């Protein structure tokens, strides 16, 4: 791995005994890991448990993490192994039906609809998720060009502050400020949907 890992500081603090740093990593990657597991396991009710196991295994193994790959790459592999292990254990369970064993097929529209409803997400919850996505996109449109460009280069293109500074021809401090202001502007639009009150930042 050549590019610096954005998670390095939190990983190192975790290794030094700071479990809060690990919690911050969990919050960061929880959704992506659950989506990955959900694509591998047919029974979406199992996803939260497998995700929990993934993070516990990562926490236990983090002293051996040497940074040869990005932290998320390493975590991704643990999630894949955890999902495979869960599928193997299901196979050994005689009470599990065949339909639960089969890996999910993205082309199977019927099962996809069933799974969306069976994981506890009501149509109202799905609608709320769509509203969140719409709010983010709408907020992006109202940003100034420089804020929108800065957050796009960081979040979608994955560029570092240094690379963005070079592209936008501005100091790194300005990049940092623009990305923060973009995030905060979008978060202001999101907070009513997330149930987070205005003063609840610190």
């Amino acid at each position, binding site marked *: *791995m050549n590019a*610096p*890992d*954005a*998670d*390095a*500081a*939190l990983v*190192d*603090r*975790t*290794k*030094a*005994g*700071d*479990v*809060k*740093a690990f*919690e*911050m990593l*969990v*919050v*960061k990657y*929880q*959704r992506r890991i*659950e*989506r990955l597991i959900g694509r591998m396991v047919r029974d979406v009710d199992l996803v*939260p448990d497998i995700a*929990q196991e993934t993070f*516990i295994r990562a926490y*236990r193994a*983090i*002293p051996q*993490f040497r*940074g040869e790959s990005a*932290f998320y790459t390493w975590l991704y592999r643990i999630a894949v192994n955890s999902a495979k292990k869960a599928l193997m254990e299901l196979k050994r369970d005689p009470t599990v039906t065949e339909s639960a064993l089969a890996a999910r097929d993205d082309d199977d529209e019927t099962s996809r609809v069933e799974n969306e409803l069976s994981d506890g997400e009501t149509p109202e919850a799905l609608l*709320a998720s769509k509203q969140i*996505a719409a709010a*983010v996109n709408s907020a*992006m449109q109202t940003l100034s060009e420089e804020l929108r460009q800065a*957050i796009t280069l*960081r*979040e979608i293109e994955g560029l*570092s*502050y*240094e690379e963005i500074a070079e592209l936008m021809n501005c100091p790194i401090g300005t990049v*940092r400020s623009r990305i*923060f202001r973009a*995030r*905060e502007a979008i*978060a202001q639009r*999101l*907070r009513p949907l*997330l*149930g*987070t009150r205005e*003063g*609840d*930042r*610190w």
Partner: protein
Amino acid sequence: MPDTLEHEAEQLSALADGELDPNGVARTCAKWQARGPAHATWHAYHLIGDVLRSEDLAGLPRRDYVCLDTLREKLAREPVIFAPGTSVRSSAAVGWARKPWAALSAVAAGFGAVAVVLIVLREPAGDSEFRAEKSAGPGASAVAANYSSAASRPGSAPQALFADGRLVRDARLDRYLDAHKQFSGVSALGVPSTFLRGATSDASNR
């Protein structure tokens, strides 16, 4: 937004991108509380990034918070991790390495690493206990002091890993060696060491 809140939210934003200095990281982590304001901001910032990359990640925070609550209970039952050592290169670390005085610091760390290696290699194969009292230099004595304090911390794990009485891994030694390796092409004189090696071989061939 009050100035303090704005500053602290900006720190979270920089940390999300790996662009916060180590002191800022420590302060931010110290203020972290599950379901606290920092959690809400951190969650929102990362939700924004996820949604920008893929709209199917637009999940509700309620479920995220419940998952974290459950995980925290499980983490509380895990043994405390203590394996310090900068094994991962961060943007902040790369920025540090570019400073002119960083090379001299790294060379000094390299000498410390050599001293520590000499201590470790001097231990007999059958000795399964790391004797922190032995030290060969100032760098090593600092390491020894840290080992002693780490060992006295309740629930802490040893920094050195032994198998069958032999040293297998020492996280602190790894850090010293990494710092030394990073500048392995530069000698204490500031001249590339390859040049010096070349001069030595030239002299021996005459």
